[in-house]
């Protein structure tokens, strides 16, 4: 199962991409209530998007972005474009998903 859910829709030459990523986005500032230990930071640092292989947006996230982050952006594109979203977190995990524009 991909961690990325994505939907993209074209209207008047502008594609709106909406994505939800499943990720804990731990800040490294919270404590485990039972043990008092600090929960180690675990958050997405970089999200990158391409449309038909061309760069659209590069995003840097800090720990202040919500758990299971939501993202929306727009670009000049068309129906049927291949939109790719990929992310990398501070522990080196990553995921990529490609979807077609409706």
């Amino acid at each position, binding site marked *: 199962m991909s961690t990325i859910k994505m939907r993209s829709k074209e209207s008047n030459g*502008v594609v709106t991409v909406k994505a939800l990523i499943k990720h804990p986005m731990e800040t490294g500032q919270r404590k485990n209530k039972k043990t008092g230990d600090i929960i180690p930071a675990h958050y997405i640092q970089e999200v990158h998007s391409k449309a038909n292989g061309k760069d659209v947006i590069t995003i840097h996230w800090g*720990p202040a972005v919500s758990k299971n982050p939501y993202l929306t*952006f727009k670009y000049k594109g068309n129906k049927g474009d291949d939109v790719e979203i990929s992310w990398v977190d501070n522990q080196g995990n990553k995921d990529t998903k490609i979807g077609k524009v409706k």
Partner: protein
Amino acid sequence: MKRRNFIKNSMLFAGALTALPSVLFTKKSYAAWPKTSFDIKDLTDSVKSVYGHNNLEESSKIKLKAPSIAENGAIVPINVSTSLDNVDSIMIFVENNPQPLSSGYQLTQLAEPSIGTRLKMGKTSNVMAAVKSGDKVYTATQEVKVTIGGCGG
């Protein structure tokens, strides 16, 4: 001898020329995740580390959409769009968070200057959207009141 020196020098010069662009390009291409900027705990310092200066200009051309009261600080929806031209990047700062810089969005020519996300906010704070257009940085600020913080646990 003269000729040999000339060749030697011209080769050195050519070497310098080829080395130079690679330095320029690495700076221009997508920078690695800016750890220092994300670690800074003060808004003014944070802005300075991102842009290299603190010359911000308020602009009505930036539309910052954020709730005036957020019931849950763990999920505060923020949308930023602008009618400014040549937008390089959009950054969102939350003044009273432990680290004010929350996120940064580097746009290419293909992208429209309109982004949205959800942020965590520890307490009531000003949220500032900063848009870099050309050499200038424009901002829009709005206060978000938080009733339950999103950073504790």
